[in-house]
């Protein structure tokens, strides 16, 4: 609980700080001037020497009043803080106290020192001391001889890789990444349809190895998958090898160090890997979606551990996926897509946009099955080397997509059952029709990858539309 401070002036100091030692004599002057003064000392209860002080031994006053610098001088009226000054500003101290010649022999300005309550070595401990009541999750106490990593495997909390132990210290630190209340319900998590709180997400984010600044992205991605449109329940339950593919946009991707370049889908980047992993761990642990239970995938794919990347916005000649999907420029956003593993399109010879588009269309045609039409969407992740061909020819997103769709109108004779000596296919009545491979909007265009390599990637989707899953884009809020 926040301690009540007495009306008048309140100073917070520590002996270890040279500025505090410098202002020590001023407290006696203030006290004799008639202004009520209370001094709290963080470290040495015998400091300051000019007046007696209250020892803020557990740093409760310093923590609850967000003291970052000592000395801090607060003005309290009717129990409420109305003003504060940090360090020594002689002018401010004279105005606060009404003592016009206060500290006449002192420098005009002297910065303070760091408050003990923000000491990196103490901050986690203090956060637990003063805010752990905001956490509602059950405490699991391990035996002293128990290996915490092994016990988390045993409890079924992991995705098959080790996880970071979610101690109260780590979870509270994770929660500093969001302004949301730990008990806010973000979504109803499938498959068990349970209320998903910010706290439970933070716990799983810690386990995934995420940093606090990733938390808003993780929360947004979970909001984006836990709804009827994306249909995370079906994405889990299907026998097909799909999971949530998370594409991040906006300046925040750079701020949190996401990878949009070399090895963009691969290993090596903490933000990319742990954001995706946190989403999947949350679905597993809170939603209850586990392989072999509700997750019935025949093969699955390695991306079900984590498949998350940032779009290379600066290098894109055709804008961004998020903006295409209605997000304002400079707004951080997450797009989720029920997708399988990426496959590579190799075209090292195309020098015209038409040639390149022909290659893309031919490879997109084979997604899932050359005779499968309209049932699945796909993301085409164009590399910088390939996008240069479009940039040089002046093709924008609209032009690229319209040329792709035009090349993916397929004669029914190639699609009907039995054609190409394959049993798979459409009923015979489609033989005299032209059928598009993708529904309108079924190709999502993104830009990412390293600066060298005439390769592009296709991420095939899952049953699309109301029958299956629709991609969802959401702005990332703090």
């Amino acid at each position, binding site marked *: 609980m926040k301690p009540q401070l007495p009306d008048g002036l309140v100073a917070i100091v520590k002996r270890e700080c040279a500025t505090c030692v410098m202002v020590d004599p001023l407290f006696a002057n203030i006290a004799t001037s008639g202004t009520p003064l209370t001094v709290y000392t963080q470290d040495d209860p015998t400091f300051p020497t000019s007046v007696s002080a209250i020892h803020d031994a557990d740093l409760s006053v310093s923590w609850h009043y967000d003291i970052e610098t000592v000395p801090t001088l607060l003005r309290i009226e009717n129990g409420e803080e109305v003003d504060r000054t940090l360090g020594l500003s002689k002018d401010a101290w004279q105005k606060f106290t009404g003592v016009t010649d206060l500290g006449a022999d002192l420098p005009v300005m002297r910065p303070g020192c760091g408050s003990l309550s923000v000491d990196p070595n103490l901050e986690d401990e203090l956060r637990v001391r003063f805010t752990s009541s905001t956490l509602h999750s*059950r405490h699991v106490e391990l035996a002293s001889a128990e290996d915490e990593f092994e016990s988390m495997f045993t409890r079924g909390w992991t995705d098959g890789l080790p996880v970071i132990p979610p101690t109260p210290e780590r979870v509270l630190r994770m929660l500093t990444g969001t302004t949301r209340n730990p008990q806010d319900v973000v979504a109803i998590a499938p498959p068990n349809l349970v209320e998903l709180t910010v706290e439970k997400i933070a716990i799983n984010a810690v386990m995934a190895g995420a940093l606090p600044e990733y938390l808003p992205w993780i929360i947004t991605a979970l909001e984006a998958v836990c709804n009827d449109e994306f249909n995370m329940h079906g994405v889990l339950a299907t026998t097909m090898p799909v999971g949530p593919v998370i594409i991040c946009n906006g300046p925040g991707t750079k701020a949190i160090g996401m990878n949009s370049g070399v090895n963009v889908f691969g290993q090596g980047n903490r933000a990319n890997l742990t954001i995706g992993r946190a989403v999947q761990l949350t679905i597993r642990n809170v939603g209850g979606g586990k392989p072999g239970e509700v997750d019935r995938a025949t093969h699955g794919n390695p991306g079900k551990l984590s498949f998350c990347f940032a779009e290379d916005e600066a290098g894109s000649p055709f804008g961004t996926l998020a903006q295409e999907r209605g997000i304002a420029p400079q707004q951080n956003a997450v797009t989720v897509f029920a997708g399988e593993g990426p496959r590579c399109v190799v075209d090292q010879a195309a020098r015209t946009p038409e040639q390149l588009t022909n290659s893309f269309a031919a490879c997109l045609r084979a997604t899932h099955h050359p005779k499968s039409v309209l049932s699945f969407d796909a993301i085409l992740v164009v590399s910088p080397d390939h996008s240069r061909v479009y940039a040089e020819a002046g093709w924008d997103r609209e032009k690229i997509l319209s040329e792709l769709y035009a090349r993916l109108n397929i004669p029914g004779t190639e699609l009907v059952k039995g054609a190409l000596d394959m049993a798979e296919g459409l009923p015979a009545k489609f033989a005299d029709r032209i059928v598009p491979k993708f529904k309108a909007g079924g190709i999502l265009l993104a830009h990412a990858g390293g600066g060298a390599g005439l390769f592009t990637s296709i991420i095939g989707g899952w049953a699309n539309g109301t029958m299956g899953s629709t991609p969802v884009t959401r702005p990332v809020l703090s």
Partner: protein
Amino acid sequence: MSAPILLDPTNESRPAQREQLTRPASVKGLTVGLLDIVKARGDVYLNRLEELFVAEGAKVLHFRKPTFTKPAPPDLRHEISIQCNVVIEALAD
């Protein structure tokens, strides 16, 4: 080694325990619900079951999920529970 305290990452719920109903000795006079999850050819399987149940003296009612990729809507589950004595859910392909 100190004993660490971990926060439970799960939803901390326990599944409700329900007794399984006794299998009926005969379906004669019972209402059998056939729930088609709308996977391909599920109807073939369920229609054949209908023939067999009708021959055994059961009344058969058909139900359909809007899509096999999502759980049956609560209203549909309620409908089945009040109209049928037993239910069969087809999982065909």
